[in-house]
């Protein structure tokens, strides 16, 4: 990573006239940059491009302003902002194609600044194909003169640094015409352009094409007019046009590059298809796309409708509560740990390796230390304890000493008086590296002779599970489906990147305040690194702006702690997105080869799986993810003969670890696709097929372990069978460009850490002097609604009001160790604690009140706000909690504590879960037959996880998990080349926007539990993402007959299957 050297700020010049601007530019063209909206500058600087010495601001030049309609063309001043053009009635009326294209450029906030001149001058702008198709000219000021030339001619000339775009002149389309525009991107909106395409056809009075203009461009595609294709249609009658020939001509003519995300061939075909279908409608689609499979209606509704409730504010009425932290969050008042400032606080930065695999020869920090304003630089030499951490294996150095294993490895850290000084200091640290061969693929990592990431070899772990006789079973199968499912290196992309502050306290302790998911464990790991006792460290880990598993390990805590101790001053650090992307853990990419077979009656009899997953440079929680995979490999189905292998490989590909779903969602993807495909092969309805193979309630889990009651899989199938969305007719759209399909998948997911991992919970209740009941849990608020769930659960168990409960969390100084806020375990910990403590705590409250009021404890009950007479038929309080607390000596105030083991199964041959939740997801999608892009139209999630603790938080978890699953399925992947990520920020890494999420999103909860079920509400944090991918995959298959085995689903694969290939 190249930090931008922030020396002097650029000078900003504001010429009064165009002539002055031209003079200024001519004088120092190499050092100057003409700017208007300047929206590209931060992007360029992030890429490491140097900042110019001076900026020439042209926004106020009168020549560059205004929109004027002339006789034959429209003149648009180059400094007109895109948002102004969007609002312009003149543009909307006279240049509708331009108006349409404007809305596809960046996002509204950016368009408030960005100008049309800037979009053109950069030569990669998304407006260029449209402007070319409209035959636009530009007015240029250069060498003291004004020229007008066509945009196409200007684009062919070499780039000059001394010209200024003054205006754009767009001919008005007088005659009858047809136009189209399509920006193909990486997601639905606010996306880099994969390729943009636009076309205009001018028609004579008989419907014959007088002239055509076709153009492509945008992003990596060089802007170009497609003259040969355009000439080929001139003179033809539009109604009789051979769209297939035109499409093929366009494909031949388009020059488009390949990159790691999309191939040249995809760009060409998708652009050509989009152009002809945009201009030719249904006729063109019929000519360039293959016919669609016949829609298959779902089987008759034969199921009992389960007793679910739709989770909405209206449906739940009184149960809908507003979480206690929401008003502060909405108003921007909530202080995150990265918002904290103190006058004496230093600013830290971390030096990252920037090279994927190398031996460190030397590190010289002297120049950095000598820079005025630098207070301390730390390297591995400053680590007094163990220079290694990791939840499972302590293989990751806090600061690398002799070797770097991925480009984001931390090598040194700096604390300085301000951000600019810290950044400059980083650039002054000289690290000499001896590069080592880069291990950039998990298959080749395991081949003999591969370079070693760690001394012990690149196979971090290998697990097996088998039962029955698979080899014999294959011969009994009537149908076998085999495929290799590939899943992405998904980035957590929490909105608040890693950061916080550390303070050496006056009493000699150290406070480390960084968003996390298990403060007590962070403290333990820090104590090992720093070689100071745990009780000398306080970790504050809440609130944090999203985690999703990505803040489960230590992040910036070691660097902050080392610096704070060395400086003896508070230090803060907040990773920017580029550094967060470079250094942070990702979801393990997987290659899942799965072979599954059933007999002629549709009974599953054999499954074989070979799973390979990448952990990158360090293990983190990946070995546990691997275990979870093996545990979920058959989903909720009984299969007699199984042979599974899972391997975890070290590479130099960043680092991987925990991410919501933790391997279960990838397994669900593979097995649910397999099951529906087998059902199709056997000619059996997918719901009926599943009913035949479902595990029986009360039967052992997949590994043979005992599991908790309240199996709700049948009910989830019933829910799908009764779903309006599932039964909605699969009809295409009006012009048939979109193919519509519906799919579903079932989910059975374990919660908790599993049988072989220590997993304990704890909680504490205390009546505070002011009368509030403090409920302390060493869990973290990561967005899920911990405060609401603590209040709701404790209030329900005690009988008090939610507002009587004061949640305290995320602080090792104020809470017991409740275990990690992961694995959907937090809800159970809070619920179980409340169950354990409420009787005793309630008794203490009643006894204290009875003593004070001279009554019998048995006649008093806990009520909202205080205690009341159990025999009275009014809500009047005998005494409020506040009065009670005031009248008690501190040691007499009620207090209860608990500690317990998370419920576990006795199975220890592998890691096995005991508590499971069920779910089902129905997705309806549209496949763009011209481009192969998939959009989710509707998503319906059915969840059976016991009682809903807080409806709003429940809904949020399921809907949010759904969107994250949608991103996993359609657009998210941190691609590497040679051990380096190709994207490092949210401009290249595509999480779903509001345009990508479904038009309708519905969540249904089945709340009941078996009578003998003593395990309460199940955690739901991972249920929302669990079955989204296979539901979308099944919907795509339903829409167009293609089963996507690779995620994110490459539009290229879909397109190749549904579009007629171009003639060679």
């Amino acid at each position, binding site marked *: 990573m190249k930090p931008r050297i922030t020396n*002097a*700020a*650029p000078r900003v010049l504001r010429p009064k006239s165009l002539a002055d601007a031209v003079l200024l530019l001519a004088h120092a063209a190499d050092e100057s940059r003409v700017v208007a909206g*300047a*929206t590209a500058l*931060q*992007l360029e600087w*992030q890429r490491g491009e140097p*900042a110019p010495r001076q900026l020439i601001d042209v926004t106020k030049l009168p020549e560059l302003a205004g929109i004027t309609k002339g006789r034959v063309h429209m003149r648009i001043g180059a400094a007109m902002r895109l948002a102004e053009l969007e609002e312009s009635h003149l543009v909307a009326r006279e240049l509708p194609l331009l108006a349409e294209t404007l*809305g596809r450029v960046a*996002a*509204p*906030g*950016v368009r*408030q*600044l960005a100008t049309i001149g800037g979009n053109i001058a950069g030569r990669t702008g998304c407006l260029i194909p449209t402007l070319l198709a409209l035959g636009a000219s530009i007015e240029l000021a250069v060498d003291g003169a004004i020229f007008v030339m066509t945009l196409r001619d200007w684009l062919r000339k070499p780039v000059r640094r001394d010209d200024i775009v003054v205006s754009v002149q767009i001919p008005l389309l007088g005659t009858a015409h047809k136009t189209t525009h399509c920006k193909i991107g990486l997601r639905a909106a*606010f996306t880099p352009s994969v390729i943009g395409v636009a076309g205009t056809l001018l028609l004579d009075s008989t419907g014959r094409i007088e002239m055509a203009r076709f153009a492509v461009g945008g992003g990596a595609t060089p802007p170009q007019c497609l003259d040969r294709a355009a000439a080929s249609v001139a003179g033809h009658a539009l109604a009789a046009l051979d769209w297939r020939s035109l499409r093929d001509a366009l494909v031949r003519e388009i020059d488009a590059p390949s990159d790691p995300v999309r191939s040249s061939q995809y760009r060409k075909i998708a652009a050509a298809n989009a152009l002809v279908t945009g201009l030719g409608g249904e006729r063109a689609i019929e000519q360039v796309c293959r016919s669609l499979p016949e829609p298959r209606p779902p089987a008759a509704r034969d199921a009992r409708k389960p007793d679910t409730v739709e989770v909405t*504010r209206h449906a739940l009425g009184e149960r809908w*509560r*507003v*979480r206690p932290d*929401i*008003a*502060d*969050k*909405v*108003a*921007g*008042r*909530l*202080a*995150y740990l990265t*918002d904290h*400032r103190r006058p004496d606080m230093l600013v830290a930065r971390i030096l990252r390796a920037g090279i994927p695999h190398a031996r460190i020869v030397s590190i010289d920090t002297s120049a950095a230390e000598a820079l005025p304003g630098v207070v301390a630089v730390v390297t591995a030499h400053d680590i007094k304890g163990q220079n290694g951490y990791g939840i499972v294996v302590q293989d990751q150095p806090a600061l690398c000493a002799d070797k770097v294993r991925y480009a984001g490895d931390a090598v040194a850290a700096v604390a300085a008086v301000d951000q600019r000084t810290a950044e400059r200091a980083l650039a002054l640290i000289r690290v000499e590296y001896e590069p080592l061969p880069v291990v950039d693929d998990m298959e080749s990592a395991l081949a003999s002779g591969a370079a070693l990431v760690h001394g012990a070899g690149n196979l971090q772990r290998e697990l097996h599970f088998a039962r029955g006789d698979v080899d014999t079973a294959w011969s009994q199968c009537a149908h076998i489906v085999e495929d290799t499912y590939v899943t992405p290196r998904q980035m957590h992309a*929490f*909105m*608040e990147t890693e950061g916080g502050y550390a303070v050496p306290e006056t009493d000699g302790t150290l406070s480390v305040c960084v968003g996390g998911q298990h403060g007590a464990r962070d403290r333990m790991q820090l104590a090992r690194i720093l070689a100071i006792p745990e009780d000398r460290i306080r970790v504050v880990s809440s609130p944090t*702006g*999203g985690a*999703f598993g990505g803040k489960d390990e230590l992040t910036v805590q070691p660097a902050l702690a080392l610096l704070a101790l060395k400086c003896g001053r508070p230090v803060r650090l907040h990773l*920017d*997105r580029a550094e967060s992307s470079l250094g942070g853990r990702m979801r393990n990419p997987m290659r899942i080869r799965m072979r599954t077979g059933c007999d002629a009656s549709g009974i599953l009899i054999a499954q074989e799986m070979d799973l390979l997953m990448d952990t990158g440079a360090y293990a983190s929680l990946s070995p546990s993810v691997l275990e979870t995979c093996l545990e979920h490999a058959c989903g909720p189905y009984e299969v007699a003969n199984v042979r599974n292998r899972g391997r975890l490989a070290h590479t130099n590909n960043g680092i991987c670890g925990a991410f919501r779903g933790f391997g279960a969602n990838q397994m669900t993807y593979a097995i649910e696709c397999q099951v529906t495909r087998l059902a199709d092969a056997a000619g059996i309805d997918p719901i009926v097929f599943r009913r035949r193979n479902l595990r029986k309630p009360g039967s052992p889990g997949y590994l043979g372990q005992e599991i908790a009651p309240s199996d709700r899989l049948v009910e989830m199938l019933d829910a799908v069978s009764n779903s309006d969305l599932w039964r909605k007719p699969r009809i295409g759209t009006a012009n048939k460009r979109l193919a519509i399909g519906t799919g579903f998948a079932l989910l059975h997911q374990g919660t908790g850490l599993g049988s072989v991992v220590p997993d304990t919970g704890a909680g504490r209740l205390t009546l505070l002097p002011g009368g509030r009941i403090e409920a302390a849990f060493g869990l973290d608020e990561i*967005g*899920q609604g911990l405060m609401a769930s603590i209040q709701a659960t404790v209030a329900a168990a005690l009988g008090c009001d939610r507002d009587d409960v004061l949640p305290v969390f995320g602080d090792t100084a104020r809470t017991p160790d409740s275990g990690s806020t992961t694995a959907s375990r937090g809800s159970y910990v809070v619920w179980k604690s409340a169950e354990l403590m409420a009787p005793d705590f309630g008794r203490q409250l009643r006894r204290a009140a009875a003593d004070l009021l001279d009554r019998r404890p048995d006649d008093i009950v806990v009520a909202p706000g205080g205690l009341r007479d159990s025999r009275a038929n009014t809500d009047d309080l005998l005494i409020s909690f506040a009065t009670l607390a005031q009248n008690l000596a501190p040691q007499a105030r009620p207090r209860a504590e608990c500690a317990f083991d998370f419920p576990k199964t006795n199975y220890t041959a592998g890691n096995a879960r005991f508590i499971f939740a069920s779910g089902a997801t129905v997705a309806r999608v549209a496949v763009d037959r011209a481009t192969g892009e998939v959009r989710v139209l509707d998503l319906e999630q059915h969840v059976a996880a016991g009682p809903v603790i807080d409806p*709003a938080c429940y*809904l949020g978890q399921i*809907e*949010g*998990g759904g*969107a*994250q699953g*949608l991103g996993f399925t359609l657009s998210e992947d941190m691609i590497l080349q040679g051990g380096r990520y190709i994207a490092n*920020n*949210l401009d290249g890494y595509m999480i*779903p*926007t*509001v*345009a990508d*999420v*479904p038009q309708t999103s519905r969540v249904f909860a089945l709340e009941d539990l078996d009578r003998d079920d003593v395990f309460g509400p199940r955690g739901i944090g991972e249920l929302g993402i669990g079955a989204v991918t296979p539901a979308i995959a099944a919907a795509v298959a339903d829409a167009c007959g293609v089963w996507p085995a690779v995620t994110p689903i490459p539009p290229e694969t879909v397109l190749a299957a549904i579009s007629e290939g171009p003639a060679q």
Partner: protein
Amino acid sequence: MTDDMPLRFRLNGEERVIRVPADTRLVDLLRENFGLTAAKTACRIGRCGSCLVLMNGNAVNSCLLMAWQIDGADIVSAEGLATLPEGRIVREALVREVAFQCGYCAPGFTVALTALLRRRRDAAEAEVRAALGGNLCRCTGYASILRGAALAQQLLHCAVGDDIREVAHAGTSGQTDAAPVLE
């Protein structure tokens, strides 16, 4: 520093004069110089919307705005939305729908929605989605935010003319689900 530029702008209704390097970003000015931390930094390249502010009434990414670009401008940060009736209603609606989870993106969404509803109170859902197109949220899947936007439109609809002040005032009084109008 000698090459600092003098900068004069309006921030949440107050005139501010400050000398800073010309390339200082507005988001850093807000957070570091004025202690206004509602604007968050999650990308710093205009690709997430967490730092949106109103500049002359329009929602703009404050990480893209450098000091030289805001000279003379009227800036309202997410904190300042409390001074606008629509801003108060937007907040109230988002609270009642529990539109956010981690909340880090929330102030940016309040700015984008306020800007939209001041201009087009009865925007169709497609327009609402278009106006929020530059705001990324990783927790919610946006559905709750869209429900919040729809509720804000309902509240605004019920609060025509002068009533808007009253509704908006009542709407932000409580931390919890005080329901001043509707239902």
